[in-house]
């Protein structure tokens, strides 16, 4: 079961320095990912180059980075929906081949089943696992309430607002209580208030069960207030991890209150400066270079 993976090579970011001793939930070992562009012409775009990182068991890791840098790609690799062109990805020491069964994945795009109601969407995973319909319904209703969707259980996706659909997707993933939770901008379609409610809900859940989380967001405040560690991805092409920031804020946290503490503001300022530089590169590259 969980075993640390020995790695001997050096890389720009050295995440193992932090997590090496702890059991490892997710590990990227010198992963490179290329996409073919222009069918048939053999050209390709290097999205990620030589990424090494780990997520410890029970650790909450966030990834921030400029748009288009490769965050979603990274998450797809962790989910086992993409295979790396080079290097390897392991979950609890097992190489990932095909969908990562120990992970739950909330994707950036709308991935609800359009032919199922909100309740049926939320309970889909339970039904796949053979949970009895009655129990699935009860637990599903509970999750609808938790995500503020009480009474909307019989709506089809096209009858819900963007934010409502996102919350259904959230409930759909979390109801299964997976060992590894992969989330790609889960809260970006929500207003700030609802978002904070959801963030607290997630933190509560995480504190109770201590699952491993890999979390992608554009909101640096969100990243800091939730995580144990924030990783900064460089601008693409050939994105790699260029910064790693352990967040040593005390737990339990309230995401609204913690933002006002000086320690938070300090961390925010530091990461922000690095992130800004990255975005300027990305944008400058695309715009002028």
């Amino acid at each position, binding site marked *: 079961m969980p075993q640390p993976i020995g790695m001997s090579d050096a890389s720009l970011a050295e995440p193992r320095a932090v997590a090496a001793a702890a059991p490892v939930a997710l590990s990227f070992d010198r992963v490179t990912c290329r996409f073919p562009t222009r069918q048939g012409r053999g050209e390709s775009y290097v999205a990620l180059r030589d990424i090494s990182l780990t997520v410890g068991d029970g650790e909450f890791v966030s990834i921030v980075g400029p748009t288009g840098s490769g965050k979603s790609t990274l998450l797809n690799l962790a989910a086992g929906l993409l295979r790396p062109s080079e290097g390897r990805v392991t979950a609890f020491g097992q190489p990932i081949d095909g969908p990562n069964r120990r*992970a739950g994945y909330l994707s950036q*795009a*709308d991935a609800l*089943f*359009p032919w199922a109601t909100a309740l049926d969407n939320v309970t*889909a995973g339970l039904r796949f696992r053979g949970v009895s319909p009655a129990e699935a319904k009860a637990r599903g209703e509970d999750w609808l309430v938790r995500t503020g969707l009480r009474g909307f259980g019989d709506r089809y996706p096209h009858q819900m607002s963007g934010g409502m659909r996102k919350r259904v997707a959230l409930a759909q993933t979390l109801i299964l209580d997976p060992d590894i939770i992969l989330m790609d901008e889960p809260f970006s379609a929500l207003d700030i208030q609802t978002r904070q409610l959801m963030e607290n809900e997630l933190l509560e859940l995480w504190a109770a069960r201590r699952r491993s989380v890999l979390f992608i967001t554009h909101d640096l405040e969100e990243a800091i207030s939730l995580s144990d560690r924030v990783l900064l991805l460089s601008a693409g092409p050939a994105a790699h991890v260029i910064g790693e920031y352990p967040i040593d804020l005390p737990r339990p946290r309230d995401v609204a209150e913690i933002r006002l503490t000086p320690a938070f503001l300090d961390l925010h300022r530091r990461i922000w400066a690095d992130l800004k530089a990255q975005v300027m590169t990305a944008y400058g590259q695309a715009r002028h270079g």
Partner: protein
Amino acid sequence: MAEPQRKPTGGVSRLTLLGLRLAVLVGLLAAWHLGVRWGLLDPFFFSTPEDVIARTWTDLGHAEIYRHLWVTSVETLLAFATGTAGGIALGFWLGLSPIASQVLDPYVKAANALPRVVLAPIFALWLGLGIWSKVALGFSLVFFIVFFNVYQGIKEVSPVVLANARMLGASRRQLMTAVYLPSALSWVFSSLHTAVGFALVGAVVGEYLGSAAGLGYRIHQAEGVFDTVGVFSGMLILTIFVIAVDALVSRIEARFLVWRPEAAGRTDAA
């Protein structure tokens, strides 16, 4: 209590609709009648609408026709059911197994291109002259239509939704029932509308080529004595029959596809 409307076009009342449909029907009949009257259409080949309707009316008054209709219906429905089931099954298999699909692809296409009329004797040979050889002929038409659509429907499944189901732990079987099937349903139904017609064509042609009963037999008999009225009246009965079956398909379709947005639906749904 006006609901938000999407488009200015669309709804006409049921009555107007019926009126328009009748107008088209009357127009067609009038054109036919006048065509024959003015000598543009030879009644030897086309008969006249009044004769055809009169004959159909008398025929429908006799028990005889219902025996034939019954035989044809049974054949049609069996061909439709087996062809659809077979097409869906093979469509799923090849749609989900890339290797099988690549290997079998040329054979499926070749089989689709075989002229069924030529195969009729072989069907008769294997299945006898009873209803089964007609069912086989209908099957061989329905099957391919459904197959190609199901196969394509499988390929059109949204990769995002599919990946989501995988991550939620769906087994291959569950992927099938929970993702592929509902997603491919509109493809399936589209093919069924074509297939209903072809199932009937298969049954009738089968009867036409060799049988002892059925509407195709009657048509063939009428044709043998150059009784055009009989031929057309047979086709009229066919037509009425197929419209009834198709209405059934449409009703089932509406039942299965409740989850879809209307034509010009929301613009914030991805």
